[in-house]
């Protein structure tokens, strides 16, 4: 239907008010031939019939009159925005302008937000990449530091191994020389102290590198307790301190725990108590109950203020600068180790009232078989050289070779010695020894390669990796290469003999 005149007029009025249409009629020569609407509204105050349309209306540059199209948002001279429709119509070209300022403002705001967000995202991603890179560099640096410390400690442990070994050898030989024995003890203590410090540095490096350091095995809890007691008794006597050592009535003997790590924690904590206590007593109270070990170490030393308590477990920090020796690592490592063993270490103290270090960790009981017990007994008498078996020792350090030779031949073994991995492979294939003790770090061909070569050539007697490197990765490498067991230097000679006996009898 046709709209009534009044309505049509109303609508036209509305459209005119809202859209402010300006219709330009342009001839073939691109001259303005007529217009309708308010040109001034868009910022064209002085237009005349006959004007060059493209000069006046710059949005018409490049327009040919072949097809209709529209330009949604064109900025006008006065800053308004117009929707421009270009419509060719026979003789003329029509341009229709309508106010789109409001719509422009609305869409501009949305687009602005979207673009800003995209830019932000871009910057963020770039920053993340930078961060990743920086983190990677830092990780690499920290790993390099760890490796450096590990290899440095390795270097230290090798000479210490022979130092400690010869000390115990001489102690056996010098039973009757009281004076010499005292000197020897001094050397022994110094070497053990040095070894403990190196072990702490090394552990700190390993903890920083996230190497897992805990290997729970069946361990004799009572033996550990007695060893700790005998380590500190002479120190207590020397410092004139009372040393009370209590073990609960209920006390499992064989428990599943990392023997070395438990000893290390005990030595660190009890050692710390002795270090800082000048008079009074140090008390160690060990209790085992329902698969857990609880240890309380109390001293009558100066105590630690509440503020300082937070610091004592941090690496390279000590509660005071009292000039005491030590790298300040013992407590921080002990805490980490106790946590890694599944327990907790805490401190209760007050200045002037001494300290109590308390830790608690899982130590489930193991029922050991009669076999194991039998194997643990070391028969060490009446051995004739070579009777117990042939052992090939691949080791490039002469002092350690001699030390091991002494102990193993005393236990009745014949010892073949190789100085490098190449020689080791050759000798092993030629003599088929009952056991190979293989140093992993040797010249020419290293222990890993030699072991792999031997396994590939069908050698299947036990091969024990001897190494000063406690890195888990090296342990895994040794296993992969085909090593039966892995022994960390410094090697306790009695332990080495026991190991040889276990592996050679199991093999026979």
């Amino acid at each position, binding site marked *: 239907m046709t709209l009534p005149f009044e309505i049509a007029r109303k609508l036209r009025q509305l459209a005119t008010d809202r859209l402010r249409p300006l219709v330009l009629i342009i001839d073939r020569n691109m001259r303005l031939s007529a217009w309708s609407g308010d040109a001034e509204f868009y910022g064209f105050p002085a237009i005349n019939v006959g004007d060059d349309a493209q000069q006046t209306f710059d*949005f018409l*540059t*490049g327009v040919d009159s072949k097809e209709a*199209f529209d*330009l949604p948002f064109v*900025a006008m001279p006065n800053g308004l925005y117009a929707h421009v429709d270009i419509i060719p119509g026979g003789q003329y070209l029509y341009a229709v302008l309508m106010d789109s300022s409001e719509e422009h403002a609305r869409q501009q705001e949305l*687009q602005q937000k979207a*673009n800003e967000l995209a830019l932000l995202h871009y910057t963020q991603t770039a920053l993340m990449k930078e961060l990743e890179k920086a983190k990677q560099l830092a990780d690499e640096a920290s790993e390099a530091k760890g490796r450096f410390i590990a290899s440095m400690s390795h270097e230290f442990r090798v000479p210490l191994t022979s130092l400690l070994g010869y000390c115990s050898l001489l102690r056996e030989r010098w039973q009757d020389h009281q004076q010499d024995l005292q000197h020897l003890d001094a050397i022994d203590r110094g070497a053990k102290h040095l070894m403990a410090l190196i072990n702490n540095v090394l552990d700190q490096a390993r903890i920083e590198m996230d190497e897992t350091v805990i290997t729970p095995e069946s361990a004799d809890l009572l033996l550990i307790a007695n060893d700790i007691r005998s380590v500190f008794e002479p120190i207590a006597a020397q410092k004139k301190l009372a040393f009370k050592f209590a073990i609960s009535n209920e006390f499992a003997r064989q428990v599943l725990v990392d023997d070395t790590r438990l000893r290390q924690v005990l030595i660190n904590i009890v050692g710390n108590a002795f270090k800082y206590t000048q008079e009074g007593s140090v008390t160690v109270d060990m209790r085992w109950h329902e698969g857990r070990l609880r240890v309380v170490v109390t001293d009558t030393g100066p105590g630690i203020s509440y503020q300082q308590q937070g610091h004592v477990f941090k690496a390279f920090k000590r509660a005071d600068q009292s000039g005491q020796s030590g790298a300040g690592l013992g407590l921080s490592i002990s805490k980490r180790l106790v946590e890694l063993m599944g327990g907790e270490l805490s401190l209760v103290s007050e200045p002037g009232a001494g300290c109590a270090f308390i830790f608690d960790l899982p130590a489930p009981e193991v029922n050991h078989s009669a076999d194991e017990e039998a194997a643990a007994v070391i028969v060490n008498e009446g051995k004739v050289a070579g009777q117990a078996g042939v052992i090939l020792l691949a080791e490039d350090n002469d002092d350690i070779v001699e030390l091991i030779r002494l102990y193993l031949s005393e236990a009745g073994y014949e010892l073949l010695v190789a100085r490098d991995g190449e020689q080791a492979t050759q000798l092993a294939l030629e003599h088929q020894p009952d056991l190979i003790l293989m140093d992993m770090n040797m010249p020419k061909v290293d222990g890993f390669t030699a072991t792999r070569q031997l396994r590939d050539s069908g050698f299947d007697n036990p091969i024990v990796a001897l190494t000063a490197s406690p890195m888990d990765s090296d342990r895994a490498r040794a296993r992969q290469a085909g090593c039966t067991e892995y022994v960390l230097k410094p090697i306790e000679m009695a332990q080495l003999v026991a190991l040889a006996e276990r592996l050679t009898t199991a093999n026979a």
Partner: protein
Amino acid sequence: MSAVLSKKVCLIGDFAVGKTSLVARFIHNVFSDKYLTTLGVKIDTKTVEPETGVSLKMIIWDIAGADRLSTADRNYLRGADAYLLVVDGTRRDTLIAALDLKQAVDRMLGDIPFVLLVNKSDLQSDWEITTQDIDLLKDRNWAVLTSSAMQGDNVELAFTLLAEELTKP
């Protein structure tokens, strides 16, 4: 009125690469570090007298930036005689976008003069686009300049190069 030669020059490139800022520097010799997204088109004119001796009225269309051409963009580009293809040196993406855009423009308008501007040379230490990238672009026989709308480097030159190209006898 004497008939001055006038040509339509468009700015093409991803958003926020500095198209609006380049025009502002060229026409009004100003710069603002505030980012105001262009929506639609803003047309400015400037008459230049290049070496060729012919004066030219450049009708400069500053178009909203995107990494591809919409229908509206195509309409804005109708009848363009030349263009500045703008890239932000600090965002490698914008170079990729520019290469895509150029292909679309070539298809639509054919082989018309253009200058590729790698903008924001004042931030060169943060650039993701390398001199090697730029050399590769120059190897295609393209007119490539590094520019800074902020400091004005090479802005005038870019427009002048286009003007010379457009007024060649």
